[in-house]
């Protein structure tokens, strides 16, 4: 390596990258995620080893791509696979211990007829306000009696007690009273502290009040059961939920996250609605992207050929206009089209213009047509763009040779231009197919999968697998991300197989070169 000013630039860049990684690592460390810190350190070492030395020259070029491939492609897939083996979803977010603690805390009720104390929070005089053992200084609002409450119990307090206007103790011998901010800093300790009394326990509420509360749920650790003390009902853990032991009534509100092995996959395979809808949806899911790609390609290619002709004036302007639909946000376009497809001529521009009464979004067949039309509008400018690019790359001498050989215009397009264009755009057509295969936003905004036939809301006439999976796992019911992940793995396999096949086919196109 030659010495040059660039070496300074190089080391500045390396240092900057390392500094960024240290900063990110610090954030992860603060959040307590060990594995993320290990990962970041590994990347930092890679950066140093690859760019700081001359040992791995090819890696210098490969590393950035590799890094983003892993971070943005591989990791999400791994994460999805991992999630698919859990029951992660609404009601199953935390651990079992958290659910026990939370459920019990939710049942703490103020015991009727007990006083609501005015409260000050104190530590022993000379103690540390941030860590010292907390004593609650309480004033009974009825008789003004004052107490010191600790986890050991309630004791009368009279020594040097001074009270504020609300009855709150402002000074007491032997205690240091915490100011609001100090009290708040001890929020966690305060939510744990209970001063046992006869009827239950005194708990704090806010900064200056305490009440006698009692939980109606108890945990029996030996039997691993939650017991409702009011009704005597016992709840046992089952499928990551607390279900009634006698099988009567509802399970408790909150469960926990656990590994469920292959259950999400077996559920998906044995789910009756999923099975019934699957074939119907898969067929439409295969046809929809196919027609979309073909129609957008034909229209885009047609325009590209037209505007590639030298006889057309003002090509730049025409081309800009044609790209406009592509420049508008797709979801806005979809919503505007939805309005235009309204059956009622008072609201729907399309039926009004053509004097029709077609129920575009309410009839299963017309809804499919409506989606294809909208996607044609959304997609052709892109095809126009890439075809224009590819056309301009077709050498003029080939075209001239065709002309000299006496080929007609159509013959030239079919035999000379198309094969050359397809080499360039073939892979993009496959990619476009794969994208439309999962075109969630369009379906979601235009029809939401509907119309729904046959008195149900599970399988819609325009559903793609992805919108269907969304409704099944997340949209129409209590969100279950584990199940959604399992279904998206099925979709992943289907798309991967189709894409693989597609690329094999397009590879054969390159033989013309």
């Amino acid at each position: 390596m030659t010495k040059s000013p660039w070496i300074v630039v190089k080391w500045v860049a390396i240092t900057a990258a390392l500094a960024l990684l240290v900063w990110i690592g610090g954030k992860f460390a603060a959040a307590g995620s060990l594995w993320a810190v290990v990962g970041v350190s590994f990347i930092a070492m890679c950066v140093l080893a690859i760019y700081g030395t001359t040992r791995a020259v090819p890696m210098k070029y490969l590393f950035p791509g590799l890094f983003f491939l892993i971070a943005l492609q591989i990791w999400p897939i791994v994460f999805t696979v991992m999630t698919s083996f859990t029951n992660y979803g609404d009601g199953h977010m935390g651990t079992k211990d958290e659910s026990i603690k939370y459920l019990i805390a939710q049942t703490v009720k103020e015991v009727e007829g007990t006083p609501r104390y005015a409260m000050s929070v104190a530590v022993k005089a000379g103690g540390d306000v941030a860590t010292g053992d907390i004593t609650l200084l309480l004033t009974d609002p009825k008789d003004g009696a004052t107490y010191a409450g600790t986890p050991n119990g309630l004791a009368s307090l009279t020594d040097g007690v001074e009270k504020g206007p609300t009855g709150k103790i402002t000074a007491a011998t032997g205690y240091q009273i915490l100011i609001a901010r100090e009290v708040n800093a001890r929020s966690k300790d305060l939510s744990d502290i209970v001063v046992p009394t006869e009827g239950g326990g005194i708990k704090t509420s806010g900064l200056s009040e305490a009440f006698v509360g009692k939980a109606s749920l108890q945990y029996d650790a030996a039997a691993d059961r939650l017991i409702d003390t009011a009704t005597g009902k016992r709840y046992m853990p089952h499928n990551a939920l607390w279900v009634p032991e006698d099988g009567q009534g509802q399970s408790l509100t909150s469960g926990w996250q656990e590994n469920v092995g292959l259950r999400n996959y077996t559920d998906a395979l044995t789910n009756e609605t999923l099975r019934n809808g699957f074939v119907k949806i898969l067929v439409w899911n295969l046809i929809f992207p196919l027609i979309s790609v073909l129609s957008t390609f034909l229209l885009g290619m047609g325009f590209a050929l037209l505007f590639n002709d030298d006889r057309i004036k003002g090509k730049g302007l025409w081309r800009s206009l044609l790209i406009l639909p592509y420049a508008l946000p797709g979801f806005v376009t979809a919503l505007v089209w939805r309005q235009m497809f309204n059956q009622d001529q008072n609201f729907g521009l399309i039926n009004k213009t053509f004097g029709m009464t077609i129920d575009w979004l309410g009839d299963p067949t017309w809804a499919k047509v409506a989606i294809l039309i909208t996607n044609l509008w959304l997609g052709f400018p892109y095809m126009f763009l890439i075809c224009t690019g590819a056309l301009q790359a077709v050498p003029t001498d080939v075209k001239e040779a065709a002309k000299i050989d006496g080929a007609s215009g159509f013959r030239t397009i079919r035999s000379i231009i198309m094969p050359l264009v397809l080499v360039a755009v073939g892979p993009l057509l496959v990619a476009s197919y794969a994208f439309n295969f999962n075109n969630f936003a369009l379906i979601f905004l235009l029809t939401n999968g509907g119309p729904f036939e046959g008195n149900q809301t599970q399988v819609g006439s325009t559903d793609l697998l992805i919108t269907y999976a969304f409704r099944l796992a997340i949209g129409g019911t209590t969100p279950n991300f584990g199940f959604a992940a399992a279904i998206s793995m099925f979709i992943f396999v289907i798309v991967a197989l189709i894409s693989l096949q597609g690329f094999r086919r397009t590879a054969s196109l390159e033989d013309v070169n």
Partner: protein
Amino acid sequence: MHKRVYGAVALAGVTALALSACGGSSTPSASTAASTAAKATTAAAPAPATTGAPVRDAAVDLVIWCDQDRKPIIDKYAAAFGAEMSIKVAVQVSTDVRKDFKDATNAGKGPDVIVGAHDWLGELVQNQAVKPINLSAADQAKFPAEAMAAAKFNGQVYGVPYAVENIGIVRNTALAPDAPKTFEEMVTKGQALVKEGKATNAVLLTVSKTGDAYHSYPFLKAFGGGIFAQKDNGDYDATKVIVGSAESIQGGEQLAKLGKDGILSTNVDGGIVDQVFDAGKAPYAMTGPWAIDKAKKAGIKYAISPLPTIGGKQMTPFLGVQMFYVSAKAKNDAFAQEFVTKYVTKKDLQIDMYNIGKRPPALTEAYTQVAASDPDIKAWFEAGKGALPMPNIPAMNSVWGPLGQATADIIAQKATAADRLKAAQTEIEANIKKAG
């Protein structure tokens, strides 16, 4: 469409996760009912490019999340609270409080207090995100019983309400001077106006192709039907779905008749209700307070009245309650409890919140003062009398889709009311069972 194929392939894997971000927010709620109504009309306006959750400000002593509209008012009281306690309070805007709060709290980065609708409650408890508030009995008595009932889950109070909302009949007084007593009267009067060419729609009601359970519920409720049966203590019972009951079917038959007569149509969605009413082309709209601002701007002379009777039975809407919640994982729990129990119960705060949202304040004292000067508020409150709170149990997530679609299908004459509502009941029960 220009994603590279790797992108497309990976997309399949990650889409479910990315989409999961939209989960839950697709169900209507007291607050989203308003936004769905607004959605279609603002279709042409670009949405904000980023919808990320706000990042919790670590340097402050109390963090509150709310939506953009309410921030100025909450800022004012947060500042007062901060001054009293000599602390720093941050009020941050979230574009989707419900989802952002759930996710952020789960990751330990949530706020201490959120402002939201009461029907999020069950879902938030299910995910261990909120905790009970110890509002004294005396404080609870300052609110109407219905509002307090909405703030409760399993008998515990989880929020302090600041506003209530419900639908009623908004009429264009130029076309229909008198408050309607019966739905039949509205239909007759409306049809006459349509015949004269003065209106295009007799009665406006949000239906849409996928249906709208929130707006259809009063029809079922009129005959004693509804969604869930109530337990003795007033809580909704998720194990007793009554969507397919004989009473609900009677209501469904009314929808079928109105659909057949062309009064109600699946071509009318929330956007069109506003559009037609604000153009002065319909005498009646069955809608809520969110429609008023637009009607005023359009220069429509309007009046608000309670829902009428249908088939001789009184219709009642769902009651929605807006409230302040305290996070179960609040880092500043003591301040959060103090703010919510001591400040949200202040009359001034409730009146200021009314000035933003134009909903009746929940605090009775504040309502009385506002109602004396604002007839709209009095009318909305009257229209909400006797209304039951929208269910806040998690099982409600399983209801919106199937019931909405059922009402749409009934109105579109795709099935009879009895068949369709019974089918919806089966579907809802299966969904609830699946969720545990």
